[in-house]
C-alpha cells in the first residue's frame, strides 16, 4: 500500500504538470495553429526566474511567482512580436522550425544569464507527512492542488468567458472569426503570453522537486506532446485527462512492471492512440480535420 501511494502521488504530480504544459501548448495551437517547440525552454525559464527572484533577491514566494508569471507572459508576447508575427502567412512548417530556433536561443540565453551549474529551489511548503506508510512531501500535494485549480480555471475560461469563446472561434475558423469582429492578431499575442505563463508556472512548480538545469523543461515538453496527441488536440478536458493518465501509467504501472522502460510508456500509448484514433481519444471525429 505504501508503495502504491508513493507511486500514485508521483504519477499524479508528473501527470498534472504534463497536463498543465499540454494545455499551454494546446491554447497556443488553437489560437495560432503553431506547435511551439520552445515550450520546454519556457518551462525552464520559469524555474530560473523563480530562482533569480527567490534565491538571488530574497523575494517571498507569492510576489516572486506573481512577477515571474507576468514576466513569462511578456516573454511570450515578445516572442510572438519579434520572431513569429513577421512569419505570418508563411507555411506552418517554417514557423515550427522557427520555434525550434527560438528554443535553442532561449536555452543559450538562460545559460549565459544564470550559468550552467544546476540550481536548487526550496519548496515553500518543506514538510512531509506519512500516508498509509508512504512518505508524502507537502510540495507534491501543493503541485497537484495548484495545477488542478489552474486547469479547472482554464477550462472554465474557455467554456464560459467571451475571450475563451473567441479563442475557440479562431481555432475553428480564423477567417470567419475575423469576419465576426474577433481581433485574431491580438488574440494570437495573448495566447502566446498565456501559454508562456502556463509554461512558467510548470517550471516554478517542479523546480523544488529536484534540481534545475537547462534541460528541466525538455522532458516535460515531451510528455505534454504525448498528452496533446492522446487527448486529441480539440479538447482541453481530454488533454488534461490524457496528461494525468500518462503520468499515472508511467509511474504506477512502471513501478511494478518493465520499470527500466517506464519513460517510454507515454510514447507507446501515444503511438497506439494515433493508430487507433487519429483524432485523439477525446477529439470528435466530425470536425477533427478542421482543428
Amino acid at each position: 500500500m505504501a508503495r502504491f501511494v508513493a507511486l500514485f502521488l508521483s504519477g499524479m504530480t508528473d501527470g498534472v504538470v504534463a497536463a498543465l504544459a499540454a494545455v499551454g501548448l494546446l491554447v497556443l495551437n488553437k489560437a495560432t495553429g503553431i506547435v511551439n517547440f520552445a515550450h520546454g525552454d519556457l518551462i525552464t525559464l520559469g524555474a530560473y526566474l523563480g530562482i533569480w527572484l527567490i534565491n538571488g533577491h530574497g523575494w517571498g514566494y507569492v510576489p516572486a511567482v506573481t512577477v515571474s508569471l507576468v514576466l513569462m507572459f511578456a516573454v511570450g508576447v515578445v516572442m510572438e512580436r519579434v520572431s513569429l508575427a513577421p512569419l505570418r502567412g508563411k507555411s506552418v512548417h517554417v514557423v515550427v522550425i522557427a520555434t525550434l530556433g527560438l528554443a535553442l536561443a532561449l536555452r543559450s540565453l538562460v545559460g549565459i544569464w544564470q550559468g550552467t551549474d544546476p540550481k536548487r529551489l526550496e519548496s515553500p511548503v518543506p514538510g512531509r507527512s506519512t500516508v498509509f506508510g508512504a512518505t508524502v512531501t507537502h510540495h507534491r500535494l501543493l503541485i497537484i492542488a495548484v495545477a488542478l485549480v489552474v486547469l479547472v480555471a482554464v477550462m472554465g475560461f474557455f467554456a464560459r468567458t467571451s475571450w475563451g469563446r473567441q479563442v475557440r472561434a479562431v481555432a475553428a475558423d480564423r477567417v470567419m472569426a475575423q469576419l465576426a469582429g474577433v481581433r485574431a492578431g491580438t488574440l494570437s499575442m495573448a495566447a502566446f503570453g498565456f501559454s508562456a505563463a502556463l509554461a512558467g508556472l510548470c517550471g516554478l512548480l517542479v523546480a523544488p522537486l529536484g534540481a534545475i538545469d537547462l534541460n528541466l523543461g525538455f522532458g516535460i515538453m515531451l510528455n505534454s506532446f504525448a498528452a496533446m496527441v492522446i487527448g486529441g488536440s480539440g479538447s482541453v478536458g481530454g488533454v488534461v485527462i490524457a496528461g494525468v493518465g500518462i503520468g499515472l501509467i508511467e509511474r504506477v504501472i512502471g513501478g511494478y512492471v518493465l520499470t527500466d522502460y517506464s519513460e517510454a510508456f507515454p510514447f507507446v500509448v501515444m503511438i497506439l492512440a494515433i493508430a487507433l484514433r487519429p483524432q485523439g481519444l477525446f477529439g470528435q471525429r466530425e470536425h477533427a480535420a478542421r482543428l
Partner: protein
Amino acid sequence: MRPDPLLAVDDLRIAYGPVLAVRGAALQVGRGEVVALLGANGAGKSSTLRAISGLQPCSGQIHFDGIDCTRTSPDRLARAGLIHVPEGRRIFPTLSVAENLQVAGAARSRRRGAFVVDDVYDLFPMLVPLRQRGGWALSGGEQQMLAIGRALLGAPRLLLLDEPSLGLAPAVVRTVFAALAQISAEVPMLLVEQNTVVALGACTHGYVMSGGRIVLSGTAAELRAGEALLDSYLGQGDVDTEDAAGGDDPVRGRPG
C-alpha cells in the same frame, strides 16, 4: 433618386495571378437599400464581396461610411458594422448555437445594435430548441439561419450576404428571405445571389456582373422588366431557380 451611398465601390480590380476576376467594377449601396449583385457563376460577385470586407487584396476604391476598406482589416471593418455572411455560412463547428451567437459580441463591440438575441430566436424559432447543439451538427438551413442571426448580433450597419439560398430546400429559402425582408427594414444589404427571381423579389436596386464588369444596373422593377436582357447575361435560368421562387413567392410581395 438614390440616397447618399453608405458603401461606394469604384474601379475595383481583382487579379488571381494573371487572371483578372474583376475588371473595374463600380457599385453603391445607400442607406435603406437592399442591393442585389447578380451574375452567372464566376462573374466576380463573391470576389467583389470579399474585397469589400477586407479579405481580398484588390486595387480601386472601396469606402464604407468614410472608411477605406482596402486598407482596413476584416475584423476592424466588422467592428465598424460592415458584417459579411460568407458563402457556405461558416458556422464555428466546435461552438454551440448559443456560443456562435455570442461570438458576434466581438463585432458589436461597444456599439448598440438593432437586434438582440431574443430577436434572432423570434426571427428563426427553429433555432430555439437547438441552442445547446454543437455547430457541427446543424443542417444547411439551420446553419444559414444561425449565420444570419450571428451577423445581426454584430450590430450591422450594412450586411453583405453571399448566396444565402445556395443548397437550401425551397421552403427554407422562403423562410430565410422572409426574415431578410424583415431585417431590411433596419439594415441595408448587399446581396449576392444566383437565384435571380428570389433576389429581384427582395431588392430595391440591382447590378448585373459578367466577366468581371458591371454590365447592367437599375431598380428591381427595371431589371425585372428587361428580363430577356438579364437572361442573356445570366445564361439559361436553371430549373431550381424557378422551383425555388415558386408560383406566388411571399418574398415578391414585400419590397424592402
